[in-house]
């Protein structure tokens, strides 16, 4: 097969985006939706058909030289290999389902062309990240998803709050992008190329300090996109966007871009043990932070947003302890079950006519059985119920941490297990409050019709979420680590433990899951009321992170801006210029008096001038 065919994967969503952006307002709704869904579906089909190209060393394809100047050159080159192929397949597949779902969700939206154009463009940008073999091209996708999420989060721009949330997402991720950008400049200065594969090869020759700093810079970029500490504040606000957006961007794809970046550059990052430790610690800290916040949220989508942050933290942990396969495995299963949960949440919001507060829901299980079962499957995966995909992938990370010989990793295992407990707790809290119990609010009067396409797209995702564990089933359960095997040399370390210990760990994980369930049952099945304590408010506001950022960064930024404008520019520079101008004005005013307009004054002055000159000459002659 011609390697250039790989560009078809990118071309389809891009073409659909361009068509919808340029002609969307003139085309009938059906055509717009068909273009959007078709573009992504064709891309998924292309990634599936081109799968053979990924085998072995993978396939590289170069379209043209994007820019070249001096000794710098960057090409539009993509690679379809063991990491990017499954990622591309996952992204396009989940995106196709989400596009279908969106067709139903946005049924009543007037501005659908803009929505689908942005959604398609987003898929394109994400695929650029996934497929790119050049850091600069990756950066294009990286910023591209930033822009698309900006446009999509603020999609309902009539409310300033939404537009602000979009802007926040763009700005905060851009702060992270600066780190990636600097890493990019540095890597070019070091290696003279931006090709990812060549950088990975050259990385072995870098000094340890350089490696450490470079890895931290890459981590900074990854943290921005993946909403890890300290750049996490944008993700909860990003829930202002339409739910399909939350599902696509904030569950399945964009937030995992950071993990993917670290996996792509794993040969470089893994060379610095200190940096790896930092990555793992950032992951665990974020996971803990987000899990505590999720346990106190009141809006259904914010709970899911914090849970996403927490799960991505697990992926960072996996990368940090050196296992790419565990990270990617969790990335895939998470994409399935979190997309499922978000889409289910969208259905819930649709059914309750836009209600977001879980304390005002309840009893929805009786209203829609299919929705309940699908959501339950997603929730069980998230909570890590045994034998679901989430169980295997999360357990894979924890087992790897436990099995490692690095002392820190044992501690990380403990912390991870504790976070798993919190996860089970808040997941069941969500389930109880939304689906069980009594209906808090009679919404029957304006109960919304749920389009069929929204319900039925949940089913394939539910199936994948339930059975996704098979992709990388450990030998313990009769599997053969399929993903690990497929990744081959790129997979990083794997757990090597006696079966007895593995069984023991599985037992621990199961009991953690049960424990979380029991806590949630006791707390929310019996007495479902929101907590009003200071602690609850602290957690609800995300540890007051937004307020802290506002006080430490945003407000001083604004004040300084006004200071520079009014004082430095206005008073100092313009002020001194005005003083100069004023001075010459005063001087002119003074000199003006000399011109009386009277002939005799002038003539007298002339006379006196002559006298003075004569006297001067005379004095010169005499002396």
């Amino acid at each position, binding site marked *: 097969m011609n390697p250039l065919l790989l560009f078809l994967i990118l071309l389809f969503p891009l073409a659909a985006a361009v068509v919808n952006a340029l002609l969307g307002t003139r085309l009938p709704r059906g055509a717009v939706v068909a273009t959007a869904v078709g573009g992504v579906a064709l891309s998924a089909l292309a990634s599936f058909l081109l799968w053979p190209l990924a085998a072995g060393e993978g396939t590289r394809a170069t379209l043209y030289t994007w820019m070249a100047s001096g000794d710098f050159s960057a090409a539009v080159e993509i690679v379809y290999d063991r990491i990017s192929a499954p990622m591309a397949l996952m992204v396009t597949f989940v995106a196709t389902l989400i596009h279908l779902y969106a067709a139903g969700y946005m049924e009543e939206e007037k501005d659908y062309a803009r929505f689908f154009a942005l959604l398609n463009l987003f898929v394109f940008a994400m695929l650029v990240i996934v497929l790119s073999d050049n850091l600069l091209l990756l950066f294009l996708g990286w910023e591209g998803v930033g822009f698309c999420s900006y446009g999509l989060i603020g999609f309902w721009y009539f409310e300033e709050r939404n537009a602000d949330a979009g*802007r926040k997402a763009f700005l905060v991720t851009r702060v992270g992008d600066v780190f990636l950008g600097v890493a990019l400049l540095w890597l070019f200065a070091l290696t003279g190329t931006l090709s990812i594969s060549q950088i990975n090869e050259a990385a072995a020759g870098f000094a340890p300090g350089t490696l450490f700093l470079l890895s931290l810079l890459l981590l900074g970029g990854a943290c921005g996109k993946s909403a890890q500490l300290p750049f996490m504040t944008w993700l909860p606000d990003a829930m202002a966007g339409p739910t399909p957006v939350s599902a696509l961007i904030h569950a399945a794809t964009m937030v995992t871009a950071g993990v993917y970046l670290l996996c792509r550059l794993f040969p470089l990052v893994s060379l610095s043990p200190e940096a790896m430790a930092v990555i793992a610690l950032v992951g665990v800290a974020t996971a803990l932070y987000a899990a505590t916040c999720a346990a106190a949220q009141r809006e259904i989508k914010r709970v899911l947003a914090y849970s996403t942050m927490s799960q991505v933290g697990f992926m960072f942990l996996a990368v940090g302890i050196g296992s790419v396969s565990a990270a990617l495995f969790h990335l895939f299963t998470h994409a399935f079950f979190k997309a499922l949960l978000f889409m289910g949440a969208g259905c819930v919001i649709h059914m309750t006519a836009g209600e977001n507060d879980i304390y005002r829901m309840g009893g929805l299980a009786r209203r829609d059985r299919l929705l309940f079962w699908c959501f339950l499957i997603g929730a069980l995966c998230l909570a890590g119920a045994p034998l679901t995909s989430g169980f295997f992938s999360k357990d894979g990370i924890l087992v790897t941490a436990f099995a490692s010989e690095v002392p820190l990793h044992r501690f990380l295992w403990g912390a991870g297990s504790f976070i798993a407990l919190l996860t089970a707790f808040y997941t069941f809290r969500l389930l109880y409050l939304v689906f069980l119990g009594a209906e808090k609010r009679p919404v029957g009067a304006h109960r919304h019709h749920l389009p069929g396409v929204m319900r039925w797209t949940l089913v394939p995702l539910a199936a994948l979420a339930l059975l996704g564990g098979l992709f990388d089933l450990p030998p313990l359960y009769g599997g053969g680590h399929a993903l690990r095997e497929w990744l081959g040399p790129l997979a990083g370390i794997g757990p090597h433990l006696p079966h007895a210990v593995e069984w023991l760990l599985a037992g621990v994980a199961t009991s953690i899951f049960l424990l979380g369930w029991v806590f949630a049952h006791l707390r929310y099945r019996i007495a479902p009321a929101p907590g009003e304590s200071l602690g609850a408010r602290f957690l609800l506001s995300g540890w007051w992170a937004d307020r802290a950022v506002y006080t430490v960064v945003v407000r001083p930024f604004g004040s300084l801006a006004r200071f520079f404008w009014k004082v430095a520019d206005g008073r100092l520079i313009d002020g001194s210029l005005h003083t100069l101008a004023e001075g010459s004005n005063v001087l002119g005013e003074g000199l003006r008096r000399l011109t009386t307009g009277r002939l005799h004054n002038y003539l007298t002055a002339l006379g006196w001038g002559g006298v003075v000159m004569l006297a001067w000459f005379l004095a010169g002659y005499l002396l």
Partner: protein
Amino acid sequence: MNLLPDITQGASSFPLLTLLVAIPAVGGLVCFFLRRHAAACRWLSLISTLVVLALSVVYFVTFSGQGGWLLYEDYPWIERFGIRYTLGLDGISLLMILLTALTQVLAILVSWRRTFELPLFFATILFMEAGILGVFLALDLFLFYLFWEVMVIPMFFLIGVYGHGRRVYAAVKFFLYTMGGSLLMLLGIIALVIIHAGQTGEITFSLPALQGTVLSPETEWWLYGAFLIAFIIKVPLVPFHTWLPDAHTEAPTAGSLDLAGLLLKTGMYGLIRIAFPLFPVAAQASLPFLAVLAIVGIFYAAWIAFAQLDAKRLIAYSSVSHVGLMVLGLCAWNQTAVEGSILQMFNHGITTGALFIMVGMIQHRAHTRDLDSLSGLWAKAPILSAFFLFFALSSLGLPGLNNFVGEILILIGAFQANPWWGILGMAGVVFAAAYTLRLVKETLWGPPDETPEWQDLTPREYIVLVPLAALVLWVGVYPAPFLEPIREPVRLMLEGGIFTALNGGTP
């Protein structure tokens, strides 16, 4: 290997370069005398700018990728003082000429519906075009200075007569600032010519000849300082920038367009073509200081832009921030960064020009530029808003659009010259995002106000915006055609230590 091009290469029997300058000048004169015939002037101006554009596109296509002087003209003028009429076109000026020609067509088009003294308005635009083209072509310092002033005077009237609100203040401020600088330059030119005449016995204003002047370090610093101040006022670098926001805010749309697109570029061009080659040693030593000013400018201006309440002022300050990055690219003094810098001059003209045009369009409809009063434009004019968003994204350096290409080349080069320059320059993109997103948010998003429906883009506005958008995308995705013409000139400039390609053109 003979790197220096043969002068006969660019010499042509027909004065192709004079044609470029003469068409707008003659058009301007005719407009000046046809004050009573607005319609005729309109078409005459459009046609003359279009002819200049067509010519420059022809040159661009014909000469793409060649080094050295592409076209060259040299005639004696005022022989008693050795003043010659010397014009030369190389890759750098080619790009600038293309930008100028395009910008002036747009300036005519956006002012199409003006009523107040329209023929004189168009005459000033055409005279300015002649002046700016002359600046980009002149190789004789006297001629350069002449064009330099010719370009300023129409702008003075454009702001002072046709501007908004505090137009007289802004016009006088602009004029005094630039005059202050250019008088210093005139002093510098005269001093240099006299020193040169003292050494060789020949009075000449020819740039290549003056390059050979032997200067004591102290003299070189003084003369370089005179030229430098003239140019960085025009660029403008912080702290010589305060004329720009006022001039931009008060100028009519066409004036803002020309200021941002062209006048600022003449400062950069002067640094590249005149100041650096004439005083290589002082210039080389001054680069780190200039870089500091540039970096301070990037952040300082971006910071102020963030606080602005007037859309035009915000964009004006963003211009100051952007030129800071371009100067940083020059300071890095390597192939990648300097190429990026020159490309960025072109990009900035396109993008910022487009933004000013669009603010003009918005103001035409909303009768305000106040960011607090504007809101929810997307609901009222989605296509206009989409274009606005597009150019704003280009301005904040979204990859795939033109500004990113220039920025990343500058940053790559700057990082090689000094890692901190690259890091700080990169950090500037967050600031760029901060003020640009604020501009977009305040105008496009939010609830639309109650005023009646707007007309979305008119056909004339499409004609203005579509080519700009196409260029933005073209340079962003495939910048090679625009990088190619400047490669050889930049290489020659860097290879001769700091000498430019000018040596090849010695008459």
